[in-house]
């Protein structure tokens, strides 16, 4: 049962990841990204990371893909530029990706990631565990993340402000 679910979810995410790369239309790419993220969230559920699956859907599917779609509509590029396949770049890209995949897979299979069966984790204590970890062991990273978000917010406002003397708005 788990095996079947794993195969379905991984096929979904791999197909949609290929869809992101191969689609001509940018909106279709964004939609494929959304489906791919849904598949990965399902895999997170299978790994008993329920909270992370929830956060992934909320942050990525809810915020990031929506932001992508907003920008696509703002720049008005739907159905615009066709997918032009350049032989040299295409071949180079495929070879590089294949090399990367083979290297990682050799490492994974030949290196024999001996981990045994997954350790049983108590489901109910997961959220409590996160809260405890975030406020004890990882307190400093949490503070740094908050500061990083503040910097990102200020940076976005500064970048997207119209430069003074840039002429009339388009």
């Amino acid at each position, binding site marked *: 049962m788990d*095996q079947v679910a*794993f195969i379905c979810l*991984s096929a979904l*995410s*791999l197909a949609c990841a*290929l869809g*992101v*790369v191969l689609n001509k239309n*940018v909106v279709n*790419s964004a939609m494929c*990204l959304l489906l*791919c*993220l849904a598949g*990965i969230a399902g*895999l*997170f559920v299978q*790994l*008993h*990371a329920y*909270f*992370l699956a929830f*956060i*992934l859907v909320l*942050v990525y599917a809810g*915020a*990031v893909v929506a*932001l*992508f779609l907003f*920008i696509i509509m*703002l*720049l008005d*590029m739907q159905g615009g530029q066709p997918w032009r*396949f350049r032989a040299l*770049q295409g071949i180079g*890209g*495929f070879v*590089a*990706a294949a090399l*990367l*995949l083979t290297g*990682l*897979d050799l490492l*994974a299979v030949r290196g024999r*990631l001996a*981990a045994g069966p997954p*350790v049983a*984790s108590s489901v109910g204590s*997961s959220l409590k565990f*996160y809260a405890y*970890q*975030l406020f004890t062991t*990882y307190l400093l*990273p949490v503070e740094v*993340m908050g500061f*990083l978000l503040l910097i*990102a917010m200020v*940076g976005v406002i500064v*970048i*997207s402000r119209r430069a003074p003397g840039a002429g009339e708005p*388009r």
Partner: protein
Amino acid sequence: MTPSLDAFVLLSAALFAIGFLGVLVRRNTLVIYMCLELMLVAATLALVAFSRFNGTEDGDVFVFFILTVAAAEVAVGLAIIVALFRARQTVQVDRLDSLRH
């Protein structure tokens, strides 16, 4: 019968390679950016799988931080793309060649 750790790591490597391929072959800045996000998510999948199979949950906390950073990164990156579009009226990397030669 739950799938093995190898299967999860292979899947995460495949997703990462697909994202890498997209960054190399696509010319549209927005699609390149989506492929970067794909690579980031592939890495988080590996982290979650490792932390599940090793019985620690530190990897999950790392993923939590990665998601935070990714959200901030997307906001800043898309703002830069919009600023670029305002300046050059294109997002195709072929035509953004000011630094060439």
